[in-house]
């Protein structure tokens, strides 16, 4: 009898499979296109920034700012732009989606390239000069190979991150108009909005399946290949033929060793400071270059604007008119007057999510760092690789009906953008505490709380700061999807910058408001990085680093 009841449902799901597969391949195509574009942008950019000091002083701060812009916040602007240029055709939405994923990958890959090329040992560089490799030879034999490990590793991370954004990018509602492209993200979103949970789960399953398959078929062999391009020597154990199990552990180990991105970021911050000081001190040469670049920038922006004006003259006139009308409308000012409150609300939300993330990751990371088995790591890997945006429907389904459901839901959704960065950095941090220091502390009778206070917490501090910087970055992003929730045909919002941004884009369709909010958000992030995180990082590095 049970079978009889289940039959039509199973059949219904089976009928979905062809549609699901075609949607999945569309999404995969978008992902590959964006990754390819990102590499094409990132590799030359990173190499030039690393090899030319003058270029570095301009290119790094640009990258830093670009990286600070919350990608999802950037998205509505890009959508409005591409849809305006391509007149609402599918190509516009298609390009906007690819562009969004591109922005989520390109900066990070450019930093990786920059970091790899900068980290080439000086003697190796001298050797390439002494044996007269020339420009092409140096690129082929030195720069590109040196980038391989980081580009593979970060490509893998970007790929995972790309899913997060793709799921959010395939369906967009602007005002009363809905733009969508076929894909796994739009599939899940549609199923969710129409309250069809079994289809949403099916889509989610397909997504996880493809994440695992791509990892196995593409990234696993690439990781093995990249191994050859590392500088450090193999240990005897690693040199033996690794099993799949060991390999996953090894991958995990690498993932822990790597993300020194924030250090590069800090370096970028320093460069920004430098550039500011250069602007204010009379240094004729650099100043002319800067002036030149500034002029170039102004010219290119002017060119871009005039291009758009040429092509979209009417549309622009219309939108300018609409903007003028909007300015008269009370709505615009009402929204604008909410800005300070929304900003504070968002920061408070992030703070709460941060505290909650720390509360569960700190003990878990300490435990995982020393005691956990491989199986736990593999499980964690799979968990972390699921794009959280695809999980949203499920989470919302459970939490929205709880007391304070909306408040709780928005915090939990924000956490999904934060917690993994913090967790993985913390595990790495705990691992990096030299065991002899812990043994020494134990031998002097420190245990329990005092051991934590004197050894563990100070030891993990640098990693905690690093994880916090990336975690907050991810959190700002998550705000845009966690403060404005479409679920079952209804829209739930809480006060915050994220929801304001969404409302400006999708309800009011007001580009000006959108830009104002985006600029507020970006400058808050840059400011916080500079005022809080950079100081904290230097302080901690100065005080707690193991020599």
């Amino acid at each position, binding site marked *: 009898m049970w079978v009889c009841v289940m039959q039509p449902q199973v059949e219904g799901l089976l009928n979905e499979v062809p549609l699901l597969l075609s949607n999945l391949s569309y999404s995969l195509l978008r992902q590959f296109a964006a990754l390819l574009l990102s590499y094409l942008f990132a590799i030359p950019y990173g190499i030039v920034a690393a090899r030319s000091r003058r270029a570095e002083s301009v290119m790094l701060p640009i990258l830093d700012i670009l990286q600070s812009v919350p990608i999802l916040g950037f998205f509505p602007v890009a959508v409005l732009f591409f849809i305006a240029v391509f007149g609402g055709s599918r190509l516009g939405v298609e390009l906007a989606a690819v562009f969004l994923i591109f922005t989520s990958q390109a900066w990070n890959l450019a930093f990786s390239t920059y970091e790899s090329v900068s980290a080439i040992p000086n003697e190796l560089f001298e050797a390439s000069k002494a*044996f007269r490799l020339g420009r092409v030879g140096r690129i082929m034999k030195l720069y590109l190979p040196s980038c391989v490990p980081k580009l593979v590793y970060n490509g893998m991370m970007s790929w995972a991150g790309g899913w997060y954004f793709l799921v959010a990018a395939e369906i967009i509602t602007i005002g009363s108009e809905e733009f969508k492209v076929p894909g796994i993200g739009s599939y899940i979103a549609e199923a969710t909005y129409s309250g069809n949970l079994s289809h949403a789960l099916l889509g989610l399953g397909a997504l996880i399946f493809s994440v695992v398959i791509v990892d196995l078929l593409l990234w696993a062999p690439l990781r093995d290949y990249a191994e050859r391009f590392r500088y450090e020597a193999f240990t005897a154990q690693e040199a033996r033929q690794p099993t799949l199990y060991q390999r996953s552990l090894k991958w995990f180990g690498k993932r822990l060793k790597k993300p020194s991105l924030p250090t590069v970021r800090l370096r970028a911050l320093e460069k920004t400071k430098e550039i500011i000081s250069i602007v204010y001190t009379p240094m004729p040469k650099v100043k002319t270059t800067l002036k030149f670049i500034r002029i170039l920038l102004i010219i290119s922006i002017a060119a871009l604007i005039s291009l758009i004006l040429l092509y979209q003259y009417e549309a622009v006139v219309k939108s300018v008119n609409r903007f003028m009308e909007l300015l008269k409308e009370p709505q615009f000012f009402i929204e604008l007057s909410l800005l300070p409150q929304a900003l504070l609300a968002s920061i408070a939300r992030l703070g709460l999510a941060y505290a909650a993330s720390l509360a569960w990751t700190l003990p878990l990371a300490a435990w995982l760092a020393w005691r956990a088995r491989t199986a736990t790591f593999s499980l964690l890997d799979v968990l972390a690789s699921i794009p959280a945006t695809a999980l949203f429907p499920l989470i919302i389904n459970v939490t929205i009906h709880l007391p304070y459901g909306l408040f709780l839901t928005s915090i939990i959704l924000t956490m999904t953008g934060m917690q993994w960065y913090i967790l993985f950095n913390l595990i790495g941090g705990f691992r990096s505490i030299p065991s002899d220091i812990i043994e020494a502390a134990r031998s002097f009778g420190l245990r329990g709380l005092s051991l934590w206070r004197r050894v563990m917490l100070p030891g993990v501090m640098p990693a905690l700061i690093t994880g916090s910087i990336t975690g907050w970055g991810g959190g700002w992003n998550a705000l845009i999807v966690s403060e404005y929730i479409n679920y079952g045909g209804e829209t739930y919002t809480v006060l915050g910058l994220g929801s304001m941004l969404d409302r400006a884009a999708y309800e009011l369709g007001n580009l000006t408001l959108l830009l104002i909010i985006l600029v507020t958000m970006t400058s808050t992030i840059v400011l916080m990085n500079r005022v809080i995180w950079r100081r904290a990082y230097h302080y901690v590095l100065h005080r707690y680093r193991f020599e």
Partner: protein
Amino acid sequence: MPLLELRNVTKSFTSKTQTPFVVLEHITMAVDKGDFVCVVGPSGCGKSTLLRIICGLIPPTDGQVLYKGSEVTRVCDEMAMVFQSFALFPWLTVLENVEIGLYSKKMSREEKRRRALKMIEMIGLKGFEEAYPRELSGGMKQRVGLARALVSEPTVLLMDEPFSSLDPLTATHLREELIDFWLNPNMAPDTVIMVTHSVEEAVYLANRVIVLSHRPGTIIKEVPVDLPRPRDPRSDKLYALVDQITSLIA
């Protein structure tokens, strides 16, 4: 005319915050074909910088380097360098690393391969052609470094503390082999300029030891080593010279 001549070479580095500091000052020396010269001095005296200036890797701030009478303005074709930390490309095999030594030479791919294989055999790495540097011991790595430098048959071999990151036994072996290469008239190199901080090594290997002072590095003295070869590393005469040079530095 000497093979290589340094005229009043001075090198100073400028940094943003500090006043420019002088690493090498008024270095004037000459190296004849067939010579084996060692440069010694306290750490930080600019020995390695001197070698890089000779090679054409970095330009001197003042003065000139002349090779066969013409000024060295870029990396010189007839010199090759061996590095302290080997500077092997970790992503290239032993064979590919040695072929790097022929990268800028105009010859066919096959010819490059043939020469590299021959060099690998001579240096005693036969069977390791397809190995990656990380799979080799320190001594073997430096053999690759040596092979890469010698494969192009340079007239002058420049060595930047080539044995200082090896264990003593390996270093002893490699020193012997280097001497054999140098003494063999059918093989490169004719001329060796080596930078080292080990006075014993310098006296054991060189025809002439050039002693540099502490920063800024200037030539304190040139000490000829007239000991007959093969030399006994523990002979009294050798140690007398070692003591003499050490007292100049300390």
